[in-house]
Each structure stands twice: as C-alpha cells, then as structure tokens.
C-alpha cells in the first residue's frame, strides 16, 4: 500500500512539473455566448448562456457544449426576437502557453466545432440549422497543484458557417427576403467564461 502511495505521489509530481502545463483531464465551463451574422439570409444577433464539459489529454481537449440564447433577427424596420437552443461538440488544441512562473499561464487555443441550433421566433415559427466552424481562443489559467485543479477564464472568437434554404428564408422573412445571397450563412460567435 505504501509503495502504491509513493508511485501515485511521484506520478503527481511528474505531472505537476510538465511544461507546458497540459489541459485538464476533465473540466466544466460556464459562460456567455454572443453571436452575430446571418440566419436565413437576415442579420441576426444573439446573447445567452453557454455550458461546456471538456475532456483533455496533453495539449488536446474534446468538448461538448450547450447554450440557450435570446436572439434578434432582421433589419430594424422589421425585427423580430426569439430564443435559440444550440448543442455542439468540438476539439481544442492548446497551441501556445506563456507561464507566469508556477502561478499560471496565458494560453492560445485553436478550435474546430460543429453544432445544431433550433430557433423559435416570436411571430414567425421555428427553424433549425447545423453549423460548422473554427475559432481562436485566449485564456488565462491559474495553477493549483496538479493540472486537474486548474481554473481559468477563456474567450473564444469563432467563425461559423451554416446552410440556409428557401423554406427557412420564407419563415424568417415572412416571404420576402431583400438581402439574400447564396445558400450559406456565416458569422462570428464569441464564448466568454470561466472553467474549472
């Protein structure tokens, strides 16, 4: 039993001395989600709450996330509001880390993700769409002993692409879409929050 404890302690020490500091094996995050771009050919903004669960190994992390947002859709003269639910998954690469001694670090991340959103508009029905994208994240991490105790804050700026079709546009614009171009909508998505 004593030798097992000794091995565990040594393993913990080795992990603590790793450099750069690896991602946490398991982490939970909560934050704000902001979106801006196009939905069904119309300008769209949203803000809401985002929850994330992540599993890390070395400099990589896989994550699942879910959000609920309040959205606005359409030009100011013909704007509607509603709610959006989004579920997504992705992978995150911890690309660079600048360590502040043994107290913490500034981190750079790259992300790739995919998700599915359901929008319920107050006066125009509901529509849904998948999305795919990539992003860059910037984080501040505080070290606490072993890596799984680390805490931090992260902001991710993401580009997303989502398909749209005439059915969605008819719902969103009530039949008349003045600014529709192409069959892909894109935009920016920002996630800001803390994790532990």
């Amino acid at each position, binding site marked *: 039993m004593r030798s097992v404890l000794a091995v565990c302690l040594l393993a913990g020490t080795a992990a603590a001395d790793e*450099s*750069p*500091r690896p991602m946490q094996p398991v982490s939970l995050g909560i934050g704000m989600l902001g979106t*801006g*771009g*196009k939905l069904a050919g119309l*300008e769209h903004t949203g803000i809401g709450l985002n929850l994330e669960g992540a599993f890390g190994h070395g400099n990589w992390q896989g994550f699942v996330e879910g959000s609920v947002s309040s959205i606005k859709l359409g*030009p*100011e*003269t013909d704007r509607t509001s509603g709610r959006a639910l989004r579920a997504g998954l992705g992978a995150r690469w911890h*690309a*660079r*880390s*600048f*360590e*502040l*001694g*043994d107290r913490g*670090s*500034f981190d*750079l991340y790259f992300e790739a993700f995919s998700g599915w959103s359901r929008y319920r508009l107050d006066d125009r029905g509901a529509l849904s769409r998948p999305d795919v994208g990539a992003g*860059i994240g*910037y984080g501040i991490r505080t070290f606490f002993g072993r890596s799984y105790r680390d805490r931090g804050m992260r902001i991710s*700026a993401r*580009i997303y692409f989502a398909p749209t079709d005439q059915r969605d546009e008819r719902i969103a614009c009530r039949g008349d879409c003045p*600014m529709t*171009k*192409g069959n892909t909508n*894109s*935009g*920016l998505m920002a996630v800001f929050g803390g994790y532990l």
Partner: protein
Amino acid sequence: MKALLIVCALAGTARADDEPDDPPTHDRLLGMRIAGGLMPYDDRELFHMSLGVVAEYRVYHLLRLTAEYEYLLFSQYEDTTRVADGTGHRASVVARHALARSRLLDGKVRFWLDGELGGGFLLARESMAGTIAKPQAIAGIRLGYDFVKFREDTRASKVWEPDFQFRVYATPHQELGFLFGVETSWGD
C-alpha cells in the same frame, strides 16, 4: 497610467537597431488579432470587423516577416439601418521592423514601437457589390510590450506579446481604408 509607463520606458530607450548586448528574445510568433475599421468601396464606406491568425518569423535582427489570414464581416449603415453586409477573407504578408524599443526592464518586460509595410489580397462577397477581389498595400504602426519568460526550466513560450496596431490599406483605385486592432502573440 499605462500610456505614461510606455512613454517613460521609451524615453529610456536605446536605438532599435544597435544593441548587440540586448538581442531579440524570440524568433517565431504565433497569435491572434481582433480588429475593426473602415474600407471605402465604390464611394461607400464599409465598416468591417476581422478575426485573424498571424504567424511571424524573424528574418534578420529586428526585421520580422508576418503571414496573416483574416476573416472579415462587412456592414454598411445609413443612419442606424444596415443597408449592406458581407463576409470576406484577406491574406497578407507584412514586414515589420522595430522603430524604438526599451531595454529589457527587470529582465521581464520590454516596450516597443514597430513600423510595418506589406501587401495583401482581399476576397469578399458583399450584398450590394457582389464579389470584391482586390490587392491592398499595407502600412502601419504597432505599439506593444513583451513579457519575457518568468522561469528558465520551462518549454512553454518564451515571450507573450500583446500590442495595439493601426494600419492604413490602399488599393489600386486610390481608396484608403484603415484598421485598428488588438493582437496577442506567443513567441518562441
């Protein structure tokens, strides 16, 4: 207060090109930039926001070469109404050289002012103009500081470098746009 610190640091600065006893701290940089600006197009002013990835390599002493990719969101407003929008991509190559830099203060921090010259190509799709494809010349300045690594026994990045930048973009049609950005990079 921050501005005052920068001015004081630059006042105690040596020239940027002749410090053999104070060599550059890193050869490569990888980072991100968030920026916004105005770009004229066909007598219209397009506001744009961009998200960029930058990779930089030191080619000679304090001369660095930067390769960049940006994703851009365009919009045009009349009063408060958005009348046009679009998205685009821009790839650029920029040479950057130190104009002034402080000594390494306390072995940890260095303030600097750099100048930039380069070129890029913009490919965008906008709701009124359709496809926009144009080369752009770039000139700019950057003001920032380097944090140099706090401990020697680490394989993490040697340098953390946040900076502000202001750029002017010129097209072959004598259109002048500008961009103000905040960049954060990690140096090795």
